[in-house]
């Protein structure tokens, strides 16, 4: 079929969307439609309330049939949002979907301008450009690239675990890579979960064992992704497996080596108990760790540090011979089609707010430290005690430490209100202490959370509204002797108070990992200004990223609680599964191509392509582009001195006509 109709005549259909009031509130849509109607080649020009709605799309299809349209231009929102929608509509109308051009008059116009005349002028100019450009559009076909069915999940916290299990249950192979020696993440450190107060371990540990025993999951702990190459459907990932000096296949987790270590007592801070207890150089992170394999810490192990040790651990391991001091770092390459990032968060360092006295006063602790104290498997076997071993008579919780604070982090960490109330209830359960919570606003929006807040109030927990000014041990009254004094403006009572307590818990907020930027680069993602990984669209694609085939789940995207993390993990797994089960990816046909007769064989383009898509035929002295490797950036197109390289969808004449178009209307 001749794309330009029977006589090669151009018949453009132009549609401007009101988007309710989003566009029409600022841009005079009928005036734009009227202006475009007079442009050469325009057969139909309409304005409509919602172009992306079914009737809106139907309107395009009907016009294609009735008015024999051969080009369609829609002026509405960003093409990143609805280009695919309208291309489909155009295709359903019987036209090649690439005979379509979109004009962004919402994000780039009505939403950013207030002057109606100027915004309408801009809309006219942009519409004019698209109408000029679309003339040069060609019928194009998308290409299909097969998808590798395996999936890589990075991060073995609750999000990563859930995503891995979901995909593995669907019968696909999953590689789960975790940086620490065990999976479990932050959740493994929790005693109970809000708002139901059910035991965290009872939820998490069965899932951890499921990971270990699942035939479709390959679990690599103590490992990090170091290199990612390829594209959606065909990623090649290099994983660094750090030496744990123990053969994972031979170790049965009997822990005899730990007992036998020359260090009779733990001497080094235990990461799992956030430094509240000590461990040996040979250790298992925590009793329910998965895998049940010991690790030898090269920073502390005498043998690894000095080469001089009695190696009692080796003797204890006896003929299993699982301990291997010669183990080396190993690089493994895997091929996967999709990647799910669930790399989580780190907790705010409370020392950054010195006036709260963390690190200065021993009885100022963080919420995670209290969590470990409350846990029955923790360093105190579930007893909440001060540093001197006595139970506290009064405990104060300071909320928003490193959250909602212009000096540190501006965002709300979303979980600390609930987490603190949970801990407050547990303190009431475990001790006779009076509990006071110092808050800015109580944020309890989750299911069952407001009810939990009510329960906390009924249970006799005191709530004082106000940002705490400082924590001090300077007693001004006899009842303050030997106590920590919280100075706060009670904004409900309207005066400054001094409240003496025995123990202070800082509800530290969530932050992106220190190396989030490195991870972002590794996987070619974007970060928000705060450093959380950026989703493709907050509502339409909340777990997708700008890199196809890379999904995000859990707190690496932003602070969230366990239910939300799991929901995202499930969503990310579903997105990956959707791609895998489709079996192929349709690639945008924006690839570059070379017109051989015009190529002078100068080789300028060859070093420009980072994807080695351009090759040179020595016999013919011509360059050529492998469309399967071309990603469509167009860098070579701009560089070709003979103008022999072209790019589909971004042809020179298309861009030149767009330039003319935007400038032909003041």
């Amino acid at each position: 079929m001749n794309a330009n109709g029977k006589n090669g005549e151009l018949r453009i259909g132009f549609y401007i969307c009101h988007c309710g009031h989003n566009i029409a509130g600022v841009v005079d849509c009928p005036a734009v439609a009227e202006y475009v109607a007079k442009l050469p080649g325009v057969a139909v020009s309409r304005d409509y309330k919602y172009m992306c709605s079914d009737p809106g799309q139907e309107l395009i299809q009907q016009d294609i049939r009735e008015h024999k349209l051969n080009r369609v231009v829609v002026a509405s929102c960003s093409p990143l949002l609805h280009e695919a929608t309208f291309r489909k509509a155009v295709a359903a109308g019987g036209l090649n979907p690439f005979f379509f051009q979109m004009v962004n008059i919402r994000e780039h116009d009505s939403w950013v301008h207030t002057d109606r005349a100027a915004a309408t002028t801009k809309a006219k100019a942009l519409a004019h450009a698209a109408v000029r450009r679309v003339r040069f559009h060609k019928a194009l076909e998308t290409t299909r690239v097969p998808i590798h069915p395996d999936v890589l999940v990075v991060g073995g916290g609750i999000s990563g675990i859930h995503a891995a299990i979901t995909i593995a249950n669907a019968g696909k192979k999953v590689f789960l890579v975790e940086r620490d020696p065990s999976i479990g993440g932050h959740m493994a450190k929790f005693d109970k979960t809000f708002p139901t107060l059910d035991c965290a371990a009872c939820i998490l540990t069965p899932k951890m064992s499921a990971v270990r025993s699942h035939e479709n999951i390959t679990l690599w702990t103590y490992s990090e992704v170091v290199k990612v190459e390829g594209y959606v459907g065909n990623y090649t990932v290099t994983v660094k497996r750090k030496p744990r000096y123990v053969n994972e296949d031979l170790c049965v987790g009997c822990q005899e080596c730990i007992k036998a270590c020359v260090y009779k007592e733990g001497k080094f801070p235990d990461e799992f108990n956030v430094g509240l207890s000590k461990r040996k150089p040979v250790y298992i992170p925590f009793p329910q760790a998965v895998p049940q394999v010991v690790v030898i810490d090269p920073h502390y192990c005498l043998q690894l540090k000095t080469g001089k040790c009695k190696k009692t651990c080796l003797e204890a391991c006896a003929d299993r011979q699982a301990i291997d001091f010669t183990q080396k770092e190993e690089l493994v390459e895997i091929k996967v089609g999709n990647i799910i990032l669930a790399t989580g968060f780190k907790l705010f360092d409370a020392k950054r707010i010195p006036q709260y006295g963390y690190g200065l006063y021993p009885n100022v602790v963080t919420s995670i430290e209290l969590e470990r104290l409350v846990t029955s498997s923790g360093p105190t076997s579930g007893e909440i005690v001060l540093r001197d071993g006595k139970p506290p008579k009064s405990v104060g919780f300071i909320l928003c430490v490193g959250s909602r604070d212009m000096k540190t982090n501006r965002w709300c960490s979303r979980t600390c209100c609930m987490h603190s109330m949970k801990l407050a209830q547990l303190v009431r359960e475990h001790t006779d202490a009076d509990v006071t919570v110092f808050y800015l606003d109580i944020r309890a929006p989750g299911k069952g959370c407001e009810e939990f807040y009510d329960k906390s109030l009924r249970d006799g927990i005191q709530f004082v509204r106000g940002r705490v000014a400082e924590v001090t041990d300077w007693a001004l009254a006899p009842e303050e002797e030997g106590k920590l004094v919280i100075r706060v403006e009670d904004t409900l009572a309207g005066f400054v108070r001094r409240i003496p307590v025995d123990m202070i818990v800082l509800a530290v907020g969530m932050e992106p990992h220190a190396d989030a930027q490195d991870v972002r680069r590794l996987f070619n993602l974007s970060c928000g200004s705060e450093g959380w990984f950026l989703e493709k669209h907050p509502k339409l694609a909340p777990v997708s990223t700008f890199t196809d085939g890379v999904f995000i789940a859990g707190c690496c995207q932003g602070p969230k609680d366990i239910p939300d993390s799991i929901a995202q993990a499930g969503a990310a797994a579903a997105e990956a599964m959707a791609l895998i089960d489709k079996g192929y990816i349709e690639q945008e046909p924006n690839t570059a191509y070379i017109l051989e007769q015009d190529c002078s064989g100068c080789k300028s383009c060859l070093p420009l392509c980072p994807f080695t898509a351009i090759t040179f035929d020595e016999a013919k002295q011509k360059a050529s582009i492998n469309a399967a490797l071309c990603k469509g950036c167009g860098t070579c197109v701009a560089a070709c001195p003979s103008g022999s390289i072209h790019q589909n969808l971004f042809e020179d004449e298309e861009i030149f006509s767009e330039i003319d178009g935007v400038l032909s209307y003041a």
Partner: protein
Amino acid sequence: MPDPNWQPRIVAFFCNWCTYTAADLAGVSRLKYAPNVRVIRLMCSGRVDPQFVLEALARGADGVLIGGCHIGDCHYVEGNYKTVRRFEMLKRLLADLGIEEQRVRLEWISASEGDRVKTVINEMVEQVRALGPLNLPNRFADWDREVSEWEAHLQTEEPSARPEPEVTHA
């Protein structure tokens, strides 16, 4: 005498992955900025052929803004390195043509920097406003008229009026 109603006209080339998305974010965040910029979307700032910039100026733009991903963050690994190289050469060329350097600007704006889009566009508009209209199309028209007048003048002159070259050899 400059037109009192004159408004700077700026053509922008934004890469799909960072700056265009940042401009979308500025919209979603309802930031407000000057309405003088017309954005043309390209997949990568590496696609910006210096000719696009020259064409835009020749067709009446008073300034050109190019936006790409931060160095090291290019969706296509290294497209923006090529952009920098071309941009530096382009600035030299523009200087030779007598076009002020401040009329063109290259900015790295990541997908999350919606507020940066606002700042850069507002700065750029003010910068170009201070320089005044570039007005190349009218200047071209003036030059064309000058040339054609000169041509006409040459044709109307009597050829015999021109002094014959003296023959010096025998």
